[in-house]
């Protein structure tokens, strides 16, 4: 009988420092040393274990259409702290992939607005790169991304390269600017004023701190988007990742198995998810 | 008892009507007849306030989270807790209107509670209003129950407590029901550094219970709420009364009696500390 609690042993192949408190780790599953790609969808997450420290759900930031399996980790707690001290070649535990992932087929032939906040860009990046690898089946792409300060902006180089892609607009903002910052200043939802999406045929994908999701959903509804056109990933309070431990219960849903990606239509009548 | 109940209701109604307080904390009967804490905010609520032999909860614990102007029904032991909370600046004296009620000892299914049998402060030590006449105090509490355990040989005592502690399910009711446990980040739940691990481990039970016992030094008034709350019936009062007995003998200090006297472990007395 398969034991869902037993992780597979994986190895850290490469580490990239994105910002002072965010690192991206490339993970190799040694059993299949040919670097066989784990079967997963954009928007799914892994349960990452550091034996002796603990385990935590972390979303996959790499796209399944690309070779490397990557996760981006912000240093916020005990496990992430130790993960930031890990070196290349260290062994970690991996369980998953879990969660439902982004609704790819609903995005086909449509314009897409990506709205990311802080480390929330990580799961979106998985979907963005996935779409750029199959660019023709999708419409116009808008990427609105904000962070607290300029050094907190993650994947800066990719933000540039995405901006050069055809039929794509990237707008970046910060809450608090510093001297060299020349771009926008202000909260992410404000960036919506800068873009003119074809509203009837657009899907919005949001990921960031709960407070940002709330304001962004409100702003999108003011623009006229219908509930099913607004999608977000609610990676909060998760622990076991397999719907058993009760931590991520919101309404009659469990974020880890019914989500973490939900449409606003699904969450509208969940009383605890209030705008 | 019946007369006092009426007076409590009348006083509570007046306090609320004159906006002296926004909340009156007292006791009520639940639908199934159980006595429990009650929070009256509207005038008509005050008719539900009761006073009888089963009002044993120590209501002072609710003062820690109700910071606005509050009135509270307080028996002898409750008033001592309130005094200690004022002394340690957890609540401000003029934010609390203390309705003092002399108490002849509470009962549970007809039997006088243990802590009431040995209680030497049946009349409130501090109050704004006293309802009913003062009752006669019993002179001495010679800690018979504690002496009984002290007289056991060492291994017997270790065996006794090991047997009691292994039933503990770490529900934290003893800590959460105690008015004197007001730390924000309790050392028993801290993660960084972590002194007690989250899963229940037999060898950590001594540390778990002895640390709390030590922290009640000079603050436990033996209201008995912890022992009554404990679902597995651990004789917790024995531990805290042992500390109270030692604090009395070593430092001549009793919790919740004198507002001006500083808690025992926050001061020292050069002459008699020499003898320690």
């Amino acid at each position: 009988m398969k034991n869902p609690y037993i992780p597979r042993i994986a190895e850290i192949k490469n580490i990239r420092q994105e910002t002072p408190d965010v690192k991206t780790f490339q993970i190799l599953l040694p059993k299949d040393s040919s670097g066989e790609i784990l079967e997963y969808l954009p928007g799914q997450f892994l349960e990452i274990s550091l034996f002796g420290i603990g385990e935590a759900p972390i979303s996959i930031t790499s796209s399944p259409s690309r070779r490397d399996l990557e996760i981006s980790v912000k240093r916020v707690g005990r496990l992430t702290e130790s993960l930031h001290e890990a070196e290349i070649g260290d062994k970690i535990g991996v369980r998953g992939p879990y969660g439902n992932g982004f609704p790819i087929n609903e995005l086909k032939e449509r314009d897409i607005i990506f709205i990311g906040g802080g480390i929330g860009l990580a799961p979106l990046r998985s979907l963005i790169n996935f779409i750029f690898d199959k660019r023709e089946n999708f419409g116009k792409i808008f990427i609105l991304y904000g962070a607290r300060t300029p050094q907190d902006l993650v994947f800066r180089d990719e933000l540039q390269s995405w901006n050069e892609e055809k039929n794509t607009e990237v707008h970046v903002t910060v809450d608090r600017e510093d001297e060299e910052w020349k771009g926008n200043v202000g909260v992410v939802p404000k960036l919506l004023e800068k873009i003119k999406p074809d509203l009837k045929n657009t899907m919005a994908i949001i990921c960031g701190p709960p407070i940002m999701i709330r304001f962004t959903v409100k702003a999108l509804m003011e623009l006229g988007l219908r509930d099913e056109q607004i999608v977000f990933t609610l990676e909060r309070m998760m622990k076991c990742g397999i719907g058993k431990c009760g931590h991520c219960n919101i309404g009659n849903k469990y974020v880890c198995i019914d989500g973490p990606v939900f449409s606003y239509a699904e969450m509208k009548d969940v009383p605890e998810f209030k705008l | 008892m019946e007369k006092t109940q009426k007076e409590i209701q009348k006083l509570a109604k007046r306090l609320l009507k004159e906006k002296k307080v926004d909340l009156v904390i007292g006791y009520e009967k639940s639908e199934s007849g159980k006595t429990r804490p009650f929070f009256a905010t509207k005038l008509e609520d005050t008719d539900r306030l009761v006073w009888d032999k089963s009002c044993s909860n120590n209501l002072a614990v609710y003062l820690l989270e109700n910071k606005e102007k509050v009135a509270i029904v307080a028996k002898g032991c409750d008033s001592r807790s309130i005094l200690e909370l004022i002394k340690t600046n957890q609540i401000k004296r003029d934010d609390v209107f203390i309705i003092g009620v002399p108490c002849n000892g509470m009962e549970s299914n007809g039997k006088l509670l243990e802590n009431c049998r040995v209680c030497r402060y049946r009349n409130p030590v501090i109050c704004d209003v006293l309802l009913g006449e003062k009752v006669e105090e019993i002179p001495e509490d010679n800690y018979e129950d504690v002496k009984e355990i002290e007289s056991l040989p060492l291994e017997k005592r270790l065996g006794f407590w090991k047997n009691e502690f292994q039933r503990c399910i770490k529900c934290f009711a003893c800590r959460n029901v105690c008015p004197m446990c007001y730390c924000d980040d309790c050392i028993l739940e801290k993660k960084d550094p972590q002194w007690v691990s989250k899963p229940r481990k037999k060898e950590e039970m001594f540390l778990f219970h002895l640390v709390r016992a030590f922290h009640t030094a000079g603050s436990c008034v033996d209201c008995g709420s912890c022992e009554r709350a404990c679902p597995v019936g651990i004789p917790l009062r024995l531990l805290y009364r042992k500390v109270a007995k030692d604090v009395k003998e070593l430092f001549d200090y009793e919790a919740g009696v004198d507002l001006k006297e500083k808690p025992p472990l926050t001061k020292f007395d050069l002459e008699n500390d020499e003898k320690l």
Partner: protein
Amino acid sequence: MKKIPKSRIKNLVRELEKNYDIIAPVRTGERVFFKELGPDDEVYLKSNPTNSPKEFFLPYSEVLFEFKKTNDEFELKPNLESRERILFGIRPCDVHSLLLLDLISGGEFEDPYYKEKREKTTLVSFSCLEPMDGCFCTSFGTGPSLKDGADLLLTDIGDYYLAEPFTRKGEKIIKSKLFENATKRDKKIKDERIKKAEEKIQKLDLEKIPEKLASLFDDKLWDELSKRCISCAICTYLCPTCYCFDVIDEGKMFTVDGKRIRCWDTCMFPSFTRLAGGENPRATKKERLRQRIYHKFKYIPDRYEKFGCVGCGRCVRYCPAGIDIMEIISQIK
């Protein structure tokens, strides 16, 4: 159908002890606990124990696996074996709680630890003729007797216990010669006694509770109800259907070897929903008490068409602040 004289219950237990571990209610002081039967423990059947049988299927703390690092390779050793045992003296409401836990721990990611223990346990249930303070099992159809779910049901019919097996394991037990044949009349006595017991138990009408709760989320009822709560874990730790847990790693000092441990957690503690970075979606006790009620009376019914409560009354009996779940339900109506 057989019956066994009350006086021979002790011998039955001794007989079963030969090839099963026995878990049964034992009286310690004035309280009764389910406990592994020690040599001088006596089975006590007069009241439903303080702790619930879930403790033997979802233990307070349980090692999921041990991890050892040998020359840069990790080796994980799951800890799954458990011994054949009998849960003797479990009451119908607790049997139903296990049926609910079966549902919750099954599904796509089936919990192997729970399943192993469930398969290795024989349930010898006793019908419940004397309701305790706080009992309302008839509102959920989870008592006072049982039609299925246990291996063997014993019901007090005077000097005897009527024995009704539901499974092969049950039949195996009543093969013992301690049992005698029972007559139709015994069955009739049993049915009458059960009927009388049912009348004694307070029945609540749970019609439309999930629907009513949907509109009551922001009602001030939750403020008033939770004011007296002291956020301890008694109601959830004693509840037979509360299954929430936390997973912790425990390493030994200076080595990487250690264990991954699953242990009870409770939605009543603020730490249950404290997120990295300090935010807490259920920071006040009002939100936490509301979550406990919603999870049992709306969220679980929405998913499993069964209430998350079996009316055993433990939370009513042991809440230090006197919060009464039956009162909450009647106020919801």
